[in-house]
C-alpha cells in the first residue's frame, strides 16, 4: 500500500489537501484535510446580533450572499420577523444571481479546464476541448467572464455591491427598486439568457429545464451544440457516470423561500438514491462530530456546540467537523436539491448511474441554471414599487434562531443563541462541511472520502485526472468548510 498526498489542490475555493492510500493503482482510503482555520465562530461571540451581518459574509467571498442570508434568517427566526414581500423577491433575486454566477464559474473556470490537460492528448476531442477550455486561455473563459460581470450587475441594483453586501436583513433588503430598476434588472437577465442560450445550451432555457428523462440527455449529447452537450459527450466517453459515487443520502434545506406561494422554489427534504424515496427534513437530526478535527469537544447538535481549536488533538486531520444527519454522511448541492425537488431527468439519471456521480453533479448544476433564470424573470415582474422592501425587526434580548438556507453548493446552517442582546453561541455548518467532512467518531468517512474509494489512478499517482474530476465535481468551498 502506498500513501499519496495531493496538494496544493487548486481551482477550488480555498485550501484543500488529500491523503490517499492506494493499492494496485486504486484508492482504498481517502482522508480529506481542510488546512485553514480562521475562527469566525469565536469572533462572533459577544457581539450585537446585527454585527453577524458584517462578519458572517466575510467567511466566504464566493457565496457571501448565502452567508448573509443564513445570518439574516437566523436573526429573523430569533425575532419572529417576516420579510416584506418585495424584500423576499429582491433577496431571492440577488441570491439566485450569486448562485448562478457560482455554478457558471465552477463549470467554466474550475471544472472544465481539467479536460484540457495533457492527460487527454490522445482523445479525439482533445484539440477542440483544449481550445475551448484551457485554463485562463480558452475561448470559453473569454466569453464567460463578461457574462458573469453582467449577471453580477444584479448586485449593484439590489445589494450595492458584491461580494460582502450589508443589504440583506431579517426584514428584506435595504434598496428599493423603482420601475427603472425593474427594467434594468430585466435587461441584465435578458443579456445573460441570450448568452446562455447561445453558448452553454444552444437551446432555449425552457427546453433544458423541461427535460424529463435520461434519454432526453442522451439526445442532447447526440445532436446538441453548446458546452452542455459537449460535457455530456465527455461524460459518456470517460464514463463520468460511474466516477465518484455519492453516499446514497442527499439533503436540501429548500431554496428561494417566499418566491413560490408559501413554500420555496425547490423543496426541502432528504432523498435516498438507493431506494428512490423522499423524507421530510428534521433539523434536530443534525449533529456535528469533532472526533477527527483540530477542535475540542464532543459530538452534539450545532445549537449547543462551542468552537475552540485543539491543534494537538489525537487522530485529528482536518479543521472541519463531521456533520451527520441521523448518523448518516449526506451529500448536498445542486444534485441534492434537484433530487429532493423531484426533477425527473436528474432523478432518472441518478437512478441509471446507480448513485450521484461526477456526471450528475455537473448536469444538475446546469439544469438548475436553466430552471432558476426564468424564475428570476417572474420575480422581477412581481416586485411592486412603492411597497416596502424591508420590514423593521424588533428584537427580543434573549433567545435563539436557526437559519437554514441553500447556498450554490448546498445546505448552509447558522445556529445562534442570544443573551442580553449579545451573541453567546454561533455555530455554522456549511455545504462543504457536509461533502468534505472528515471521519466521524465511528470511523465512517465523509461523502468525498467515500466517493474517492475505488478511483483508478491510471499509473499517475497524485496526478491522476480522475481524482481532480471527483473532487471538483462537488464544487467545494473550503473557506466555508472550517471557517
Amino acid at each position, binding site marked *: 500500500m502506498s500513501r499519496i498526498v495531493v496538494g*496544493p489542490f487548486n481551482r477550488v475555493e480555498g485550501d484543500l489537501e488529500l491523503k490517499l492510500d492506494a493499492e494496485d493503482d486504486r484508492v482504498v482510503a481517502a482522508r480529506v484535510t481542510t488546512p485553514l482555520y480562521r475562527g469566525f465562530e469565536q469572533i462572533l461571540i459577544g457581539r450585537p446580533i446585527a*454585527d453577524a451581518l458584517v462578519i458572517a459574509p466575510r467567511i466566504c467571498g464566493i457565496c457571501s450572499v448565502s452567508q448573509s442570508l443564513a445570518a439574516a434568517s437566523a436573526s429573523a427566526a430569533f425575532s419572529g420577523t417576516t420579510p416584506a414581500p418585495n424584500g423576499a423577491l429582491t433577496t431571492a433575486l440577488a441570491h439566485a444571481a450569486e448562485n448562478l454566477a457560482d455554478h457558471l464559474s465552477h463549470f467554466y473556470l474550475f471544472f472544465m479546464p481539467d479536460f484540457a490537460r495533457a492527460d487527454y492528448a490522445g482523445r479525439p476531442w482533445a484539440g477542440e476541448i483544449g481550445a475551448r477550455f484551457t485554463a485562463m486561455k480558452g475561448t470559453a473563459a473569454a466569453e464567460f467572464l463578461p457574462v458573469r460581470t453582467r449577471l453580477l450587475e444584479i448586485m449593484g441594483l439590489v445589494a450595492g455591491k458584491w461580494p460582502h453586501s450589508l443589504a440583506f436583513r431579517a426584514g428584506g433588503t435595504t*434598496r*428599493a427598486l423603482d420601475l427603472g430598476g425593474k427594467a434594468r434588472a430585466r435587461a441584465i437577465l435578458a443579456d445573460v439568457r441570450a448568452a446562455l442560450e447561445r453558448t452553454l445550451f444552444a437551446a432555449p432555457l425552457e427546453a433544458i429545464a423541461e427535460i424529463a428523462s435520461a434519454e432526453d440527455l442522451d439526445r442532447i449529447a447526440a445532436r446538441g451544440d453548446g458546452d452542455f452537450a459537449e460535457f455530456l459527450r465527455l461524460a459518456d466517453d470517460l464514463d463520468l457516470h460511474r466516477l465518484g459515487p455519492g453516499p446514497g443520502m442527499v439533503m436540501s434545506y429548500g431554496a428561494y423561500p417566499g418566491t413560490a406561494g408559501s413554500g420555496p422554489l425547490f423543496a426541502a427534504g432528504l432523498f435516498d438514491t438507493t431506494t428512490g424515496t423522499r423524507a421530510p427534513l428534521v433539523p434536530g437530526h443534525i449533529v456535528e462530530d469533532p472526533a477527527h478535527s483540530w477542535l475540542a469537544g464532543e459530538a452534539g447538535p450545532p445549537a449547543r456546540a462551542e468552537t475552540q*481549536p485543539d491543534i494537538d488533538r489525537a487522530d485529528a486531520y482536518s479543521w472541519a467537523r463531521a456533520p451527520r444527519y441521523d448518523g448518516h454522511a449526506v451529500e448536498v448541492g445542486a444534485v441534492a436539491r434537484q433530487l429532493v425537488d423531484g426533477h425527473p431527468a436528474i432523478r432518472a439519471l441518478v437512478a441509471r448511474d446507480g448513485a450521484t456521480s461526477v456526471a450528475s453533479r455537473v448536469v444538475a448544476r446546469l439544469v438548475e441554471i436553466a430552471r432558476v433564470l426564468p424564475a428570476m424573470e417572474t420575480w422581477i415582474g412581481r416586485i411592486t414599487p412603492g411597497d416596502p422592501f*424591508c420590514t423593521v425587526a424588533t428584537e427580543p434580548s434573549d433567545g435563539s434562531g436557526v437559519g437554514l438556507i441553500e447556498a450554490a453548493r448546498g445546505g448552509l446552517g447558522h445556529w445562534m443563541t442570544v443573551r442580553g442582546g449579545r451573541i453567546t453561541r454561533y455555530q455554522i455548518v456549511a455545504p462543504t462541511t457536509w461533502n468534505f467532512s472528515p471521519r466521524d467518531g465511528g470511523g465512517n468517512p465523509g461523502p468525498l472520502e467515500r466517493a474517492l474509494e475505488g478511483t483508478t489512478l491510471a499509473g499517475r499517482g497524485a496526478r491522476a485526472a480522475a481524482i481532480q474530476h471527483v473532487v471538483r465535481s462537488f464544487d467545494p468551498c473550503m473557506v466555508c468548510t472550517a471557517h
Partner: protein
Amino acid sequence: MSGETVKRFNVLWLQAGACGGCTMAFLDHGRRGVFAELDAFGIDLLWHPSLSEATGDEVVAILDGIAEGRIPLDALVVEGTVLTAPNGTGRFQMLAGTGASLLDWIRRLAARARHTVAVGSCAAFGGIPVASPDPGEGVGLQFEGIERGGALGAGHRGAGGLPVVAVAGCAPHPGWIVETLIALASGELGAGDLDPLGRPKFFADHLAHHGCSRNEFYEFKASAETASDRGCLMEHLGCKATQAVGDCNQRRWNGSGSCTDGGYACIACTSPEFERARGFLATPKIAGIPVGLPLDMPKAWFMALAALSKSATPKRVRLNALKDHVVVPPGRAKRWGAEGGEG
C-alpha cells in the same frame, strides 16, 4: 498598447487566510474579461490558486523555482490575513502538499519578488479575521492594524524599491486591484503614489462619502432612521464614509451600486482596524452626538452647521429621508402647471 513592445510582467497570487472575495472581485474587471485586460498590459498570472491549470507538485515546482531564484517574479500578490497561530508557527494555515505554513512561504517568496502587493484589507492590515479574540493571531503583510510590522516587517522593500502596496478594501473595488497591477507593470507606480499605509493614492486620496447619492440629505442632516430609508446614514445607521478613504462613490460597483447607494453604512473597510468596531450598523453617540465626525472638521463647527442645516431642511428632503422611495418630488415650475419652483 499598439506601437509599444510589451514587456511581460508575471504575477504569483497566493491566498492566505482569505475568504476568496478579492479574487471574486478581480474576476469582475474588464469589458472583455479580466484575462484579456491583463494580457493587453503584458501581465501573466504565473499561478493563481483559483484559476490556473497547474496543480499539486507542478505548483510546488513553481514555488520552489521562485524561492530559489530560478524563476524571476515581478509581483507577489497575497490575498487574506497571514495567520501566525499557534505561537508564531503559522500552523493554522499549512500550504497543502508542502508541509510548510503560508507564513513561511510568503516570507520566502516576498524576499524574491520585485513587488509585493496586499490585495484586500486582510493582507494589508489583518482585516476581519483579526477581530477579537483574533483566533488565528493574524497579521497583514507589513502592518498589524495601524502598527508597522506584520509578516514581512516594517523594513521590507521589494527589489523594485516599494514597500508592500496595499490595495485595501473588503473586498476592494475590482478597478483598484487591476489598475494597481497595470501601474506596476508599466513601471509608473512610485513610492510617492502611495499613502503612508501603502495604499495607492489614486483611490486613497478620496473619501468614500464623495459623490454619495445621499449628499443632499447629508447637507441638511436629514437622516435615515431605519434600514432602507433614503436619508443620510451617518447620524443613526453607522455610516463612516466621511472618515474612510476610497473613491467608492465616484466609481460604480457591479454596474450601478455602492455601499451607501445600496442603502447601508460604509463600515470603513479600507481602514486598518475597521474590524475593531462593535455595533457596525448603529452610530455610536455621546449625549446624542455622533462620536466619529468627518475627518478634518472641528466638532464645534460641525455642531453649528448641523443645527443650522436641520432648521433649514426643505420638507421634500425631510420627508424623503424617512422613506425608501421618493414621496415628495422636486417641485415643478408654475408654467408647467404645478406648484413651486423646479428643484
